[in-house]
């Protein structure tokens, strides 16, 4: 069966991805067996996150339901656009296909971190 992603490893990867950008990243792992609307669920969780003053991204993964979603707020969406979400999900999908959930999350965070550093480097003023 699919290995459960290690929370500590994911937290470290989040810290790496956030280095050099002011944006905040969160990862939610769900144990749902079915998830028909991952993006809708991501929106719900996103609305609960304390995002502080700067832009944020939420990556939602439900391994048992084999669904995931990556959601960013308006600020990041305006800067990075659809292109970012497409590239992150494409990278993640290839890992998911090999049942490598943790790998998918870590790779997705990597891609996100690179993009956020480009679009939202640390030191920029909040939009």
């Amino acid at each position: 069966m699919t290995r459960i992603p290690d929370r500590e490893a994911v937290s470290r990867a989040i810290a790496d991805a956030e280095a050099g950008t002011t944006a905040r990243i969160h990862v939610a792992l769900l144990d749902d067996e079915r998830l028909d609307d991952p993006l809708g669920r991501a929106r719900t969780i996103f609305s609960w996150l304390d995002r502080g003053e700067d832009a944020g991204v939420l990556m939602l993964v439900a391994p048992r339901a084999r669904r995931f979603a990556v959601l960013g707020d308006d600020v990041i969406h305006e800067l990075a656009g659809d292109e970012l979400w497409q590239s992150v999900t494409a990278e993640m999908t290839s890992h998911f296909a090999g049942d490598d959930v943790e790998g998918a999350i870590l790779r997705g965070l990597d891609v996100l971190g690179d993009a956020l550093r480009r679009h939202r480097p640390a030191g920029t003023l909040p939009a």
Partner: protein
Amino acid sequence: MSAIAARGVLASALFAVAIAVAPVLAADFPIPPVPHTYVTDGTGSLSSATTDALESELKSYEKQTGNQVIVWIGQTTSDVPLEDWTSTVAHAWGIGHKGKDDGVVLFVFMKDHRARIEVGYGLEGDLPDAKASEIMRNVIVAKMKSGDVDAAVSGGVASILTTITPSFASNVPAADLAASSNDDESSPAWLPFLIFGIFFGVWILVFVLRRVGGKGTGWGGGWIASSSGGSDFSGGSDFGGGDFSAGGGDFGGGGASGGW
């Protein structure tokens, strides 16, 4: 037909107690109307399937055990502290039966991201604060954090019922419940033992499976990870860690609160 009658009895019982208690009460915030149903969701957060399933489950639970467990979902307690609000309201409503105080209310406040299990004195022994806290933390808050209100509430209710009444088979399909309640009068004396036996067997089986399964099974309710300090979701070792506060017990017995 009997369903309507049962609901009527519940409503009138609640009203009678409420009228008796209300004048004594000095709340400085408006008390919501006494619920007419076991599940009251003023926020539309629960799916109608879950509402219906819980409604019939809680009804059959009260029929079997005499304990009244209800669910009430609202948006906010405004500037009233959660525990003050819920204990005052639970008292004003007079949930449970007069003299026995055998009621439990699961309050959920969507806008506040807070919930509380309010336990009547009569059930404190069966549902002590520590156990209510556990249910709040491991079931309700965990599921709320993952955005699944239906699972949070129905999982919370199922845990409350089976904690108070270990022999209550909360997952029995509705058809089975109807069948067994139809011949309540003629139930053989050994039936409770059989039910207990089955429950006990399942419990042992679950226990054994858990031991055998070890670390690899289950997703442990999931988690939300962030690296940023200061957020509710950072750090901690499991879901609902940092922002959990155990119940007060200043009014009406006790319970547990949690936030997500």
